[in-house]
């Protein structure tokens, strides 16, 4: 049976086609201009949720990278201070070797003065600050990590809490070297011991202090090596986070990116269909019995 077609129906169908092709073309243009398959939750409910999740994880990774950067900066500056402290102990050892030698007994005064200076430098380095924060005082960032009493003994003035950074909500890393580590106490004790022996011209004491200076120097070197290892470990974490960031960016691009070729084809198809519809609407004007009646 041949379907009967009402006059108005022909125009309505053509108009609906024009609307559809215009909408298709506009949507494809919007996607091409934004470079993404969708922009709003209304355009892609579940996919938009995935995008938000990807962006959240990117934020977490960015926060982690920033935290690792902060930790590495603190550890690098701490390592620098520790290396300088080890150098001071090395110089003290040299002095000790010189002063325990009989040939150098005439240079006591100069050695005493130098040791006084080295002791002050050691304390200054132990009280190093970065951006105004005490490096070795634990979380007591606002005060010197070490204080020297009237007798010349140096005591730890910080607390026992580590300065940490949060790589993410579940991963917290210590970023400091705490002054209550044995190496610091040994260094101050060895320097004081040698200075006291020098002042008392106590050769036996100087020889004992030389051993202590050796041990303390080694302890500082070990502590610095440990700091370097922690820094390297952070390098690995940084690399992992960077790779994760790259992966997430790739995943995000794959998920959100527009298929430009497909959109161009869609626009072309809509354009052809639109032109055909316009042509038909124009042709309808002369396709009626009215045009043939006298």
């Amino acid at each position, binding site marked *: 049976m041949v379907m009967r077609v009402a006059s108005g129906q022909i125009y309505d169908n053509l108009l609906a086609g024009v609307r559809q092709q215009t909408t298709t073309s506009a949507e494809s243009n919007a996607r091409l201009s934004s470079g993404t398959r969708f922009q709003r939750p209304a355009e892609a409910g579940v996919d938009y949720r995935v995008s938000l999740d990807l962006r959240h994880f990117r934020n977490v990774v960015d926060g982690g990278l920033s935290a690792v950067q902060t930790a590495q900066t603190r550890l690098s500056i701490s390592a620098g201070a520790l290396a300088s402290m080890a150098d001071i102990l090395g110089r003290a050892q040299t002095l000790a070797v010189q002063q325990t030698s009989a040939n150098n007994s005439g240079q006591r005064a100069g050695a005493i003065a130098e040791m006084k200076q080295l002791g002050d430098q050691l304390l200054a380095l132990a009280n190093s600050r970065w951006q105004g*924060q005490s490096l070795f005082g634990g979380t007591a960032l606002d005060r010197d990590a070490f204080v020297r009493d009237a007798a010349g003994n140096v005591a730890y003035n910080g607390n026992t809490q580590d300065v940490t950074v949060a790589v993410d909500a579940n991963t917290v890393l210590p970023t400091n070297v705490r002054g209550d580590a044995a190496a610091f106490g040994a260094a101050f004790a060895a320097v004081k011991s040698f200075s006291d022996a020098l002042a008392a011209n106590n050769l036996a004491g100087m020889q004992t202090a030389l051993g202590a200076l050796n041990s303390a120097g080694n302890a500082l070197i070990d502590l610095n090596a440990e700091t370097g290892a922690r820094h390297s470990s952070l390098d690995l974490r940084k690399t992992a986070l960077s790779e994760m960031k790259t992966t997430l960016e790739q995943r995000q691009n794959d998920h959100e990116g527009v298929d430009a070729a497909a959109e161009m084809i869609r626009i072309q198809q809509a354009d052809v269909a639109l032109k055909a519809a316009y042509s038909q609407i124009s042709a309808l004007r002369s396709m009626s019995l009215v045009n043939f009646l006298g």
Partner: protein
Amino acid sequence: MIFDSLHIAATSLRAQQKSMDVVSNNIANANTPGYTRQRAELAEVGTQKLGGVNFGRGVDLAGIGRIADPLIDRALANNQSQSSFWDTLATGLGSIENLFGSLNSPGLSASLDAFFGSWQQLANNPQDMAQRLNVRSKGSDIATQLASMSQQLIDLQKSSDAQIDQKLGEANTIIDRVAKLSISIRHAQSTPNRQANDLLDQRDELVRQLGQTIPIQRIDSPDGSMLLQSSSGSLLVQDDLVAHLQRGAALGNGFAAIVTDRAPNDPVQGLENGGSVGGLLALRDARIGDYRTQLDSLAANLVFAVNREHAQGSGSSPLKALAAGQPVANPALAINSPLQNAPFASKVVSGGFTVHTYDAAGAATPPGGTQIAITAGSSSMNSIVAALNGVPGLAASLDAQGKLNLAASGGGSFALGADSSNFLAAYEINTFFHGRSAASITLDAGIAQDAGRIATGTVDPFTSQRAVGDNRTALAILAVQNSKLSFDGSATNSLHDRSLNLSGSYGTDMANARQQQLYRSAEASSLTSQRDAISGVNVDEELVAMIKFQRAYEAASKIIATNNTMLDSLLGLIK
């Protein structure tokens, strides 16, 4: 016999002329919405027996028929009702699209990320005032965004409700017109062979319009009368019996029910299933209502989870005085009593918290602070005030509103810590946020004035010392974002997931509405084609019919002319 022929030809002239009228009417209404094409129903006039032979007596217009299929009309009416429902819903949902952000502009999820990201930065640099200012800014942002989203959702609910009133007014107008038309149709059709086609078309169109407003059921009678009722059976029109829709008593959601003036105490059921009113009800109650519930739940859990950590933390600025954010309804009642107004009063459990006090020089008095014990079910605000007044260097009182006020005495200061009872968070003492929902969430006024009040660490439980670099509170708050939690009876979920679910719900609702729009549109197109195939006017057909009737008219005229000639011939014989 000649006169019989003249009479027969005359009936043909009349019938063809009337048929031409029908054709004219069809062409005139070719573009009239809802018009059903008509057909002249010609019938032979009864025969006359002369000399044993039956002769025809001509033609007559027996009636003018409407070419319609009631089944397709019903299907189309139902489709239009559903189309109107989904159009209204999609339009309403589209109007709040901006609330949920886009990939280029931050939405709620991005603001939450920014808020907790600022806590991460602060945790990494707790001594840095710039990071405190950033946390304060992001905290204010998230509070403002939640409040703004809530307000816009409330506004849309109110707007939808106002539109429902407008639609009910339109529906009542249609109901009145349908009633009048039904009476006219019944009156017109009481005359034999009389079809009130135009009136039927008008009534059908009005019923379709009513169906686009509210879901209806229709029962027709052969005499032209019609019963219209809501989808649940509430009478709307039966002949001259009319029930107008109006607003009744408020429902549980705060909005007035829809009733009829004939049953003002019985809400009309099923209105949410179709039509624009249904779309508005679904938008107002189901969709926006759900978004508000989710948003409020997210806000409530954000507030309490952050506050629970913050309340037992310590900032860089020493506390001199502090006022609770939540009042106690009855200071003699247990602080976790359901009769207390504080939104999280029920979260108070047995345990306690510590108050650390410091003298003017900053020395702890005593080191380790003073423990305030809380026993759920028995500790009242009065007993807590008494206990706090026993702490050296601290004065506690209740103000006129019933809010706990704490003040250090002797130029000293105090700090709070280790709250295992949730008391501090429940009554908003030393908290970051205040409020219980998206509409009421605000940043603490003290923090708004002094970012040093933002707690980053905790007070040492033995020495009462506060370390500048302590980030334990900041870390605890950072952990809140992805912790699965529920403090408001909702399903346990993380704040991040809650924000995603909210956007996801909206996106799914919108996609569903658009999908339904497309489906209903395609269905409408198909049904309209089917209806037009039966009831629509084809101008070519009508022109052909016009030629057909014209030719018949000309032929009848020829018969009259021929008969006239015959009569002339006859009269000539007489001459």
